[in-house]
């Protein structure tokens, strides 16, 4: 049994975004979701870095799609979240929830 990996804040956001795109999540739509939902610009390089790290940690799995002409014959790299990734998300969620417990008065103020 693998230990649950620790994911950083940006990696956490990327994991959630990949799940939102559901099928055929590759860098372009993932970045679009991230920017749309967080309202912050996301550097492409940072996204690639995060995806690569997540894959190394076993939180996402990737596969190469088919080359398409509008991409100059280059294939897409699709990602989906692994059970381990879900576990890491849950762990992060739980720790955040436990950390914020008792601070609802401050955190939920408008």
């Amino acid at each position: 049994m693998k230990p649950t990996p620790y994911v950083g804040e940006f990696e956490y956001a990327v994991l959630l975004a990949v799940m939102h795109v559901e099928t055929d999540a590759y860098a372009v739509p993932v970045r679009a979701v991230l920017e749309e939902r967080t309202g912050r610009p996301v550097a492409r390089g940072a996204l690639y870095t995060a995806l690569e790290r997540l894959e190394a940690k076993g939180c996402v799995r990737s596969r190469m799609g088919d080359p398409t002409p509008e991409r100059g014959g280059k294939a897409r790299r699709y990602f989906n979240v692994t059970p381990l990734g879900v576990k890491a998300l849950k762990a992060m969620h739980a720790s955040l929830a436990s950390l914020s417990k008792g601070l609802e008065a401050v955190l939920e103020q408008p």
Partner: protein
Amino acid sequence: MTSPTTPPLSAERLLRLSIRDLEWRDAVTGDLREEFAELTRRRGVAVARQWYWRQSLALTARFAAGRVIPAVTPRRRTGVAELEAMSLGSGWVREFRHAWRALWQRPGLSAVIIGTLALALAANAVIFNLADALYLRPFRFAEVDRLVVIASDTSSDKPYFDRESVAPADFQDWTRVATSVRELVALEWWDPTYSGVERPEQVHGFRVSPAYFATMRVQPLLGRTFTAAEGRPEANRTVVLSHAFWQRRFGGDPTVLGKTLRLGGAPHVVVGVMPPRFAVPYGAEVWAPLGYDEAGWAERRRGFLMTFGRLAESQTLESARAEMAALAARQSTEFPETNRLRKVTLVSFSRGLGDDAVGPFVAIWQAAAALLLMIACANIANLLLARGTERQPEFAIRLALGAGRTRLALQLLIEGLCLAALGVIAGTGLAAVAIRFSRDFLPPTVVRFVPGYEFIRLDLATTAAVAAFGAAATVIFSLVPALQASRAAASGALLGGTRASTAPPGRQWMRSLLAGAQVALTLALVVASALILGAVNRAANGATGFDKRNLITARLTLPEGPYADAQRRRTFSARVLETIRALPSVTDAAVISALPYTNLAASRTLFLDGQPADDATPRTVDLQRTTPEYFSALRIPLVAGRNLSDGDGPEAPRVALVSQKLAEEYWPAQDPIGRRFRLEKDGDWVTVVGVVGDVLQDWFTGKRLPTVYRPLGQDPTFSMTFVARTSGDPLLLADAVRRAVTAADPDQPIENLATMDDVIRAKVTGIDYFARVLTVMSGLALVLALTGMYSLMSYLSARRTKEIGLRLALGATRQQVMWLTANRAGRITAGGVLAGVALATMLSRVMQSALFGLVSPSAAVLVGAVALLTAVTMAAGYVPARRAARQDPWVALRTE
């Protein structure tokens, strides 16, 4: 959806280079392309392209920094071995960082070293490039290394390789018999007049065997090459054009095929166009088939064909030489009358078509460049030694802290590498400029005869050579200081600190040796270039036997077709001469078949009346055809007898003038006037009517060849040069001379219209170029020797500041103190000069034999060079000596 637009490809290429993982590479560039296409749709191509550049640069920076996507393989646990490897890696980085800091501690010193190295490397790059382009690989087409040039040697009086020397019958024999060399082809110079157009001109070309292009392994760009049937008389009226000529005269028009050009007065049908950059040999613009009949191919007496061939499979130059030598031996017994003295020379294509002088020139250049690099290395080694002494305490501390001696030596080697890397970069930049300059320096008139000219440029090979030279130099100049550092004694240096007033004697000895070696090498270079410059000067301005000032010359060749009738040639030259003579500033005007210095005169064998012919040593003479005023125009004195006259026409008795040299050689102590000779075995008898002064016909050999001058009226040539002496600037007459020719025949171009001064200058261009390159190098060497001596002397006197202060305090005079330093500079100079004289004497001997006796060792040059070197190095030593003597003893004593 619109068709996909392409992003900036160079940006994409850059990005791809920075990503090592192949899958990621496709994924990332694909994503960018997708977004690029989207952005193009929304905002237009310009915005999208800008965006693409920004994104790809940002990503490149990120990937290249190695922060992302490090390896294809999954990560493993770090083991001990990897930890060690990592520490070694970071150790290297540390070493380099350390070296970098050390260099920055003395920026001035580092700059001097880098500058010195850059200069020497740039000089070597230029020479390497020239050698590669002009000598090693002047021809770069397919399988050129299997091509050979074959020549016949008949006499040994020409010091150079005569490539147009094969007799047609000999050529036929070889083609039939030779097995080691196949696909033989023959060529004959053919510079026809291109006429029947608005601007007639003389074009450069060759008549060749139909198989010529097949042997050269080139395919035509357009059309075809020659068929075997076209190699017959009258059938050979086809022509293949060079790419350059096609572009120049037809603007690259593909419909040129099938057109008829008037070449040499005869119509020729264009059948093909060659690909770009094929202008072999000698900048050929047109090629037409040779068209000898049976009798033409049976000619065995005269050799004038150029012959190329291909080494057969598994044959070498040596085996082919052996076969050809055996063949030549057989021919000489079979045809003793013509072939008895004939030998066969077989050389590689590059060697055969190059100028013979290029080899020795390039060799001397390379020797000079190597000397320069050695001087630079000695200089740098000396500077580093001095710096090493200064850093003794640092090394001592490192040793005391447990650094190994190899580690210290390695450290110095790395510092050397850093210096060399910077030197290589600066040197490459400098070389790019210098190579460009050395290319533009060659006058366009000679470029045609410089095979490989187009390769004079900073190419990959040259850059690699610079790096290699730099690496070699690093090893040389960092070895000495590295050894010194590895011998450093920890305790002594620590105790003594910087107080050690002078370096140990052993090391000083090494330094003086290096400085002395610089002086010696520089002296040799200075002598070599002075000798060459002297030779150039002699060739251009030496005694020629005529007055070369205020002469305008116009060389042309009449086409054989329209001028087949001798009377038409006479009329043409007479008409042109008449017009030129009528020009106001012209004092004399004449026609000569070949100008002196041009090496174009015809050679003939002389058969004397009453003296039996000796086949072993044929009496070879230069044959000139001229008009009477030639001798007054060139101010060649008439020594005896009468001049030629207009009365010596076709119907008059055959007469000639002979040169003094000829008269002395064949009628010693006799009156040559009235003697008779023949120029062919069964030719007409010619009577000598006068003797004229000798003229230098061939500057290269410097020989005054026996010369026969026949009246043009009795033997009108196709090729002729008009010469006119003017009272003013001869160039002002250029247009008038051109008009005179056009008036006589509007279709007739002039090959070369120039003053006699320029004709001579053009002849010495090659050696002049050679001399100038060498002079630049010896100038550089002088500068390096000067700085080397100066830096050594200033360093030494700085090291002895305290000692000098003590001496001054104890009552030594300034002269005595100055003597201390100057004495040493003097000893180094004297040693260097002595060794240099020996080296220079050796070098000038080598040059004398390598350059066909063009230069001769000269005591005056040697003395001058010694004086120059002594003055320069003593001056370099004097300044630091004076500074040492001027110092205040109190200040000096207190310095650390």
